[in-house]
């Protein structure tokens, strides 16, 4: 057995190794399980690890391969964010409410990735019910950033991002309602894509804000993200918003042979708002250096305007809590989840169950959502926010008349220290300013590692494209990654062998 260095191995490399019989899927799974066990006390990236399930799935993949089956994900270990339902395995959303909830069925994307032959290692930690940008609201304790353990990994998919960055899994799933794939990908120096709304079925993904939620892959490279997205995407009649489109191969543009100017003809739109006063200098410096690289690869730049993007945060903090207050009403202590031990009557049971089961951030958002939907306030808040959402989406459409992709930082800062923002919700909300727009408009967007701040923390650049431009975004990122090595850097101390 010759295992590659798992702190930096990609899905594509591991897949080639499995095909060449350099190691078995079982050997690979065992090696990742050992890495998870070694890192868990410091990083806390996983809520649940499933060694028995992983071994069984790995053996099945090895048997399938021996029988002549093949596939890019056959025998590849993966982790699922803990809001995707996994039959027979705890699905907690990092909440006390679901701390002991064993899902009775698989989410669509879980089924899809299992059918592709992947091996589920376990479930990764997140901000409770995906509400947060730091994974500090997890009921199961904070997750730490592998690059600097006193920094946050970002959120809400912070466990997935930390696990990939530390080489505890070659790839993981995430969900993105306001930036929850892209922001932790940026903070942890990995690659993640939120596809166009409706590309990945939401069936079995615990709902936060249904008109914004979208699943996507998080991995070490754009090439790996393409492999996962190809397996995850596709129409599913069980989600009424799943788009009836033909299956796509998101790797299709990546195989073109490298050339000196692979991005010839690509017009990169640069909105002022992404380079303003609120962006930290090391972030701006890394993005500007990435732009030089992209232009060297043949791309050109053009100024574009997103005049209403500044309103995306208040718009989001009306719409997302409104949808959350409705979605989370299902947690009533009757059909699943936590139920208070003592209560006087049914109403008291609901109120105590929800007071005990939800954390502070989730309660705050439910209260905001309940208020904006309540009698007399609906027009002033909810309807108003839906109108501004239209203005923001229209801005993107106008910008894409002039460019193929919009580029800027994923986040205005690198990862803050643990506790630095958790006491000030507004400050944390405002950091989502660059990512929320793609959710409101339903556009695909990804974060790609493009440098480091002087304190050693990674910087991510965001690429946003028109509807259904995933293959093109992934190709642009892939060409950038062929010319740079930011995505290949690994945090120190993650070689647990």
């Amino acid at each position, binding site marked *: 057995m010759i295992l590659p260095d798992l702190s930096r191995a990609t899905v594509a490399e591991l897949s080639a190794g499995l095909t060449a019989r350099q190691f078995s899927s079982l050997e690979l799974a065992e090696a990742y399980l050992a890495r998870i066990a070694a890192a868990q006390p410091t990083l806390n990236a996983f809520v649940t690890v499933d060694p028995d399930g992983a071994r069984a799935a790995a053996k099945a993949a090895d048997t399938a391969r021996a029988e002549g089956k093949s596939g890019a994900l056959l025998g590849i270990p993966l982790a699922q964010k803990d809001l995707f339902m996994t039959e027979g395995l705890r699905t907690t959303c990092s909440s006390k409410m679901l701390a002991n*909830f064993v899902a*009775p069925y698989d989410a669509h994307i879980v089924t899809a990735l299992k059918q592709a032959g992947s091996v589920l290692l376990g479930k990764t930690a997140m901000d409770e019910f995906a509400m947060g940008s730091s994974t500090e609201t997890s009921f199961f304790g904070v997750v730490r950033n592998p690059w600097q353990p006193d920094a946050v990994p970002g959120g809400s998919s912070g466990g997935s991002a930390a696990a990939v960055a530390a080489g505890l899994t070659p790839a993981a799933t995430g969900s993105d309602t306001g930036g929850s794939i892209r922001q932790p990908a940026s903070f942890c120096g990995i690659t993640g894509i939120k596809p166009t*709304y*409706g590309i990945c079925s939401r069936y079995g993904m615990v709902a936060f804000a249904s*008109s*914004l939620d979208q699943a996507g892959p998080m991995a070490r490279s754009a090439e790996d993200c393409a492999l996962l997205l190809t397996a995850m995407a596709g129409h599913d*009649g069980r989600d*009424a*918003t799943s*788009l*009836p489109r033909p299956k796509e191969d998101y790797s299709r543009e990546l195989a073109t042979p490298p050339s000196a100017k692979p991005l010839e003809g690509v017009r990169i739109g640069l909105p002022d708002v992404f380079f303003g006063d609120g962006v930290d200098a090391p972030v701006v410096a890394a993005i500007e250096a990435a732009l030089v690289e992209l232009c060297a690869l043949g791309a050109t730049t053009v100024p574009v305007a997103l005049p*209403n993007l500044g*309103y995306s945060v*208040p718009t989001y*903090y*009306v719409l997302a809590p409104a949808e959350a207050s409705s979605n989370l*009403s299902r947690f009533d202590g*009757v*059909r*699943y*989840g*936590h*139920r208070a031990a003592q209560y*006087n*009557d*049914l*109403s*008291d049971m*609901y*109120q105590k169950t*929800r*007071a005990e089961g939800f954390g502070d951030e989730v*309660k*705050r958002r*439910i*209260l*905001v959502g*309940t*208020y*904006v939907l*309540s009698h007399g306030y609906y027009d*002033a*808040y909810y*309807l*108003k*926010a*839906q*109108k*501004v*959402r*239209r*203005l923001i*989406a229209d801005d993107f459409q106008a910008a894409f008349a002039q460019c193929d992709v919009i580029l800027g930082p994923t986040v205005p800062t690198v990862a803050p220290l643990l506790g630095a923002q958790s006491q000030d*919700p*507004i400050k944390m*909300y405002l950091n989502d300013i660059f990512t929320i727009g793609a*959710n*409101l*408009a*339903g556009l695909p967007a990804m974060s790609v590692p493009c440098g480091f701040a002087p304190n050693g923390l990674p910087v991510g650049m965001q690429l946003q494209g028109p509807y259904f431009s995933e293959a093109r975004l992934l190709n642009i990122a892939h060409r950038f990654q062929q010319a740079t090595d930011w995505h290949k850097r690994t945090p120190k101390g993650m070689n647990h062998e």
Partner: protein
Amino acid sequence: MALSQNEIQRIAYLARIKIDDAMLPRLQQQLDSIFEMIDALSKINTAGVTPMAHAQPLALPLRKDSVAEPDRRDHYQQAAPAVSDGLYLVPKVIE
């Protein structure tokens, strides 16, 4: 806009979340700052703008009105806090 503590308790009741009175001052301060941020929306001219409820202009899809799922009631009820004879148990609601 400032929310009174009574209003917060009214919303909390609508949301069926019990809030201890001791928590109210801090919660009030946090909600005030959130609504202060949200109030920026009121300055935007949205006359004639069609509200956008969803990212894709989808019509509600219809499917054939036929049984598509097997009966997995017992399996699903394993996650329930209290069941009996296939029913979910709740505190008595009618005296």
